């Protein structure tokens, strides 16, 4: 056994070597008196991370209980949120969150995949790094600055150049689609919030999609090209099917970010009385913007509990989306932390 090990490949020896170090570090052999203490401290500090997640859920659930007890399932399914009359239904906020995030995803995903394809499949080597870097810088801009820009620049721009001339004038006359453009175009609505979200989640989707696309084996591409395929046919036939699952995961990571986005949405969505409808031009609320707007008014215990239950709902929804996204992406060769700046 020992001889076999000694004769083993360099790689194998390296592995044994590392194992021995790990065992030493783990204090299995020759531990001094202070080592177990040091190890215990680091274990405890790691435990703080676990405790944080548990505490967040427990505290929010505990404080949401009063509202849950009073309104039951109606808290989630109720369509009216009226603090003066102590009627609390979160559904309009859930609707606003889902609708804006969906629009953001719808706009950002194709652009992000396009940018990722450009970086991996088209761009010359020297251009790859700089483009990725610049797009990822978008993730470093604080959300309040997106909000400011959306509030003063993007909102008015969309109102004057998209909502009024295009959406109102054209879609108004199309049966069915006219549902999307009910109401006046004021530039602070679901559409503007959705577009801002699209910009904000673009780097998230792009950087993960780029990594996933880069893991597609070269032979896959060469086989397609050898058949006489054009570059697009190669992408469509060999790259995208291979990377599909990972790309879906990257879009879900983007969705996770969009669901919880607060300041940018709060400044661009209009925050007016929430109505549930299909119009892109309705000012609305998302769960996050409702919390940001109402936490300081929540004076009565039941109002406080209702606001906390919005936070809990948001936490559960985005937690599930994040969990699924991370499982998918880590299974298909991407790095979920590629998104941070």
């Amino acid at each position, binding site marked *: 056994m020992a001889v076999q090990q000694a004769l083993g490949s360099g790689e194998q020896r390296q592995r044994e070597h590392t194992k021995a*170090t790990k065992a*030493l*570090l783990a204090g299995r052999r020759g531990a001094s008196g*202070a*080592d177990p203490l*040091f*190890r215990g401290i*680091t274990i405890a*500090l*790691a*435990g703080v*991370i*676990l405790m944080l*997640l548990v*505490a967040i859920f427990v505290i*929010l659930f505990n404080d949401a209980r009063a509202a849950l007890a009073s309104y039951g399932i109606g808290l989630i399914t109720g369509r009216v949120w009226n603090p003066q009359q102590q009627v609390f239904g979160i559904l309009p906020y859930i609707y606003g969150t889902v609708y804006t995030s969906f629009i953001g995803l719808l706009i950002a995903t194709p*652009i*992000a*995949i*396009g*940018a990722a*394809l*450009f970086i991996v499949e*088209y761009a010359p080597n020297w251009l790859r790094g700089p483009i990725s870097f*610049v797009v990822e810088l*978008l993730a*470093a*801009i*604080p*959300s*309040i*600055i*997106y*909000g*400011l*820009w959306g509030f*003063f620049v993007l909102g008015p721009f969309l109102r004057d150049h998209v909502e009024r001339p295009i959406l109102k004038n054209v879609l108004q006359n199309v049966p069915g689609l006219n549902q999307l453009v009910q109401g006046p175009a004021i530039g602070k609505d679901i559409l503007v919030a959705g577009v801002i979200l699209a910009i904000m989640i673009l780097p998230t989707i792009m950087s993960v999609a780029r990594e996933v696309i880069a893991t597609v084996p070269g032979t*896959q591409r060469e*086989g397609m090209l050898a*058949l006489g*395929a054009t570059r*697009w*046919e190669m992408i469509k*036939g060999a790259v995208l099917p*291979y990377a599909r699952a990972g790309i879906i995961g990257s879009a879900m990571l983007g969705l996770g*970010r969009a*669901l919880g*986005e607060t*300041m940018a949405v709060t*400044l661009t969505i209009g925050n007016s009385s929430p109505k549930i409808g299909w119009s892109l031009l309705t000012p609305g609320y998302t769960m996050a913007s409702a*919390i*940001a707007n109402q936490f300081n008014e929540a004076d009565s215990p039941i109002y406080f509990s209702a606001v*906390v239950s919005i*936070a809990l709902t*948001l936490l559960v929804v*985005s937690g599930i989306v*994040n969990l699924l996204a*991370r499982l998918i992406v880590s299974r298909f060769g991407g790095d979920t932390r590629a998104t*941070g*700046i």
Partner: protein
Amino acid sequence: MAIETFPSQPGKQPLNLKMVSGHAAVRRTINLLLASLIGGSALLGVGILFIILAYIIARGAPALNFDFFTKRPAPLGQAGGGVAPAILGSLTMVGIGALIGIPIGVGAAIYLAEFGRGRYAYTVRFVADLLTGLPSIAIGAFVWAVLVRRVFHGFNAVAGGVALAIIMIPIITRTVEEILRLVPNSLREASLALGTPTWKTILQVVLPVARGGIITGVVLSLARAGGETAPLLLTALGNEFFNFNLNEPMSSLPTQIYNYAKSPYADSHTKAWGSSLVLILVIGSLSLLTRLLTRRGQFKQ
């Protein structure tokens, strides 16, 4: 077209020969069209950054003057005043966040990189990643429910710092863990072979070698925390006055931008852009600095 499909790789999507057939001119046109769409997407992604930055600089630069950095905000509607309390508040609360977050984050990273095996370490890693993805407003709501409503009975700077710490901890943990893993094992072995205890090996050999990378990870988390608005809004609220009492509401650059943006006065809007310019300059230079530092080799010996 006798063969319709053939397997490209076992278990993977078969290549479809129909895809590489058709009129050559049509295929070339489609190829060109899609290439331009893909190129256009990349251009859009790059362009949007420059558009946003251009707006921040063009609209923010006129707001910057000496008063802007030294005075407190003027009453709404009045010209003049500055954002000095916001700058100080941001520094204070990011500082509190760092004081709490760095020891916990680095300690957890040491555990994960040096000892971490098995289910416990796997769970910590996964939960840290999950925490990074949670909405920051939910973290703010948590601190609001605990510290603001229960412990302090009012908005205060400490709660703001704690909220920022919770945002920083998972970022520090995961980046520092990666860095520690890059430290060559031979260094650890050399130290252990000399009879140095494990704790001393880690603190006096591993950490100093990885110092550059650890600083990078920490600074990146500071930059992230410095731009957070929602958690500070729910915990420290904001303040128009200079405040050095940690038990009172405290201003910060992001919440100040929010207040200025919501106000109806043009002068306030200019100040909102100016504050954004300051914020982005600080965050941008931090990111850039650390990127340059990491590029210049972390493990000089």
